[in-house]
């Protein structure tokens, strides 16, 4: 039995290695065949893999029906954009210091932290909700985040004739000044443009080809974290909560604590994806198809179609949902029809997703159980 298991394991390792090499070589092949458009779709695909993995933590591991995920994606993108483009001057008790104007990587780190904080504030009041009620609450909260960004926190003076400085708050002890207030803080419906491209040690990730490998590095990082989580105490606690919340609670699993962690970690990873999006396109706006409810649904579909709780499932699911509309782009009227048909077929023939999360381990257990019976 041990032998069979190790063969299965080594087969899996080979499959992972081949996938990795394929991902590594893909842009090189596309570059040789002079296909920059498809490389940028590849970048998009990788960003959606990160979003799918983030969703997989909330939905796949902890079983939380989270449909506000695009809110955290937006928070990540906006934090990177604001810290990059705007500069704030703080005056506290006469001490002056400036925040902002940071380059991409420090901004991304702060975006991760802020997404986690927003994830905490977002989930704390709705933690006791279950199933469909949780789902409705998250839809609302996700849209609230987008509306806050659209309506801007600071009244923006119209046009380009804003004064060079705008004082946000006055007081004896605290004074905040926004140095370049054109467009206000979040730019309202127009969003923020002119975000600097990521740069490290003089190397700029300016072409889609270079950006592809940057995002791929983050995909690998997230995958590593998820693999570590899967078999940890935390991962097991999530499994118990997903399988049966009441039983988990009566066995001493602190469900509030672990659900909160699922929300926070998932929000943080989605925030990273948002930051990478901002760095890729250098322009962001609160468009409903990018940061709205539709995006959350797409993330949800990636996890459900790929297979709940399965990492290879996320890779396949995002391939289907990001690439399929691109392939049928030449039929602009009908391209979502093909996606719809593909989703229907998947649901009929593979109702548990293309690669169900517990398929491999289930088969192993099932075989062992049969052989021990006979």
């Amino acid at each position: 039995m041990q032998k069979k298991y190790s063969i299965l394991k080594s087969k899996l390792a080979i499959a992972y290695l081949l996938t990795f090499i394929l991902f590594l070589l893909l842009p090189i092949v596309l570059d040789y065949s002079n296909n920059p458009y498809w490389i940028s779709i590849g970048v998009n695909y990788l960003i959606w893999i990160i979003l799918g993995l983030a969703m997989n933590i909330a939905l796949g591991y902890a079983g939380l029906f989270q449909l506000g995920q695009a809110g955290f994606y937006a928070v990540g993108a906006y934090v990177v954009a604001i810290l990059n483009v705007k500069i704030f001057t703080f005056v506290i008790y006469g001490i002056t210091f400036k925040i902002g104007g940071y380059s991409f990587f420090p901004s991304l780190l702060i975006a991760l932290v802020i997404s986690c904080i927003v994830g905490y504030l977002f989930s704390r009041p709705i933690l006791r909700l279950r199933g469909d009620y949780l789902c409705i609450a998250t839809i609302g909260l996700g849209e609230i985040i987008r509306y806050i960004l659209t309506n801007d926190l600071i009244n923006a003076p119209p046009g380009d004739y804003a004064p060079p400085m705008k004082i946000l708050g006055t007081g004896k002890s605290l004074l905040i000044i926004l140095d370049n207030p054109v467009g206000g803080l979040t730019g309202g419906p127009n969003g923020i443009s002119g975000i600097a491209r990521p740069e490290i040690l003089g190397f700029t990730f300016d072409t889609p080809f270079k950006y592809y490998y940057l995002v791929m590095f983050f995909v690998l990082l997230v995958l590593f974290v998820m693999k570590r989580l899967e078999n940890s105490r935390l991962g097991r606690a999530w499994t118990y909560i997903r399988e049966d919340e009441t039983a988990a609670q009566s066995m001493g699993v602190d469900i509030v604590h672990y659900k909160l962690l699922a929300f926070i970690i998932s929000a943080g990873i989605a925030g990273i994806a948002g930051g990478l999006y901002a760095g890729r396109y250098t322009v962001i706006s609160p468009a409903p198809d990018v940061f709205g409810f539709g995006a959350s649904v797409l993330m949800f579909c990636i996890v459900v179609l790929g297979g709940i709780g399965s990492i290879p499932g996320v890779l396949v699911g995002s391939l289907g949902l990001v690439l399929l509309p691109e392939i049928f782009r030449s039929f602009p009227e009908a391209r979502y029809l093909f996606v719809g048909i593909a989703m229907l077929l998947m649901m009929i023939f593979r109702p548990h997703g293309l690669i169900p999360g517990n398929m491999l381990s289930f088969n192993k257990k099932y075989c062992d159980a049969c052989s021990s019976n006979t």
Partner: protein
Amino acid sequence: MKLLEVENLETCYGNLKVLKGITFSIEKGQIAALLGANGAGKSTTLKTISGLLKPLNGSIMLENEDIARLETHKIIGLGITHVPEGRFIFSTLSVDENLEIGAHIINDKKRVLEIKEEVYNMFPRLRERYKQLGGTLSGGEQQMLAIGRGLMANPKILLLDEPSLGLSPKLFMMIMDKIVEIRDKGVTILIVEQNAKAALKISDKGFIMETGRIVKSGTANELLNDPVIQQAYLGKKT
């Protein structure tokens, strides 16, 4: 020495008061039986003790510490484990994984393995099937698994809710023998049971509940020989 003292406990479901002030105590190393008709509030009592429900009034003292209103995972950490009615086995997880859930509050991996070994020694049938999925076990095996899982938290008190549910008489007797065996290892047990006679036979103490109140309590022998109780709960015609 009194291990668990419940005093004037009241619990509500919304507007409906189910426990109307119950008071009882259990000494260390005893088996106590909580008996009564359907809807008397037996399961509610257990749920309140284990923290799944929060009491309205009253106190629950475990070794002179008030545990009423604590979170469930903290109560389990203090030594009270609840084996709920209907067992709540994780049907998609293996027997081994199901047992590990019970030890979730114990951080020490080595200690978990030791306790698991003890549980497997107590229920050899579970060891035979350790890789089988929880949902494919028979009713008796599932009950063993539920009790074994409760023991994984290394409890001082084990709360058993209807261990006889859906079991054949023979299997039921076996489970009862196991309960005595667990008591002999030093775990105090509070058992809720419909089969009053069988429960009182292995118990040291018994409490009879009726519509949210304890109407009679005493040693198991007293209750077994009480003519009123014999007629009402033990199926003896007078």
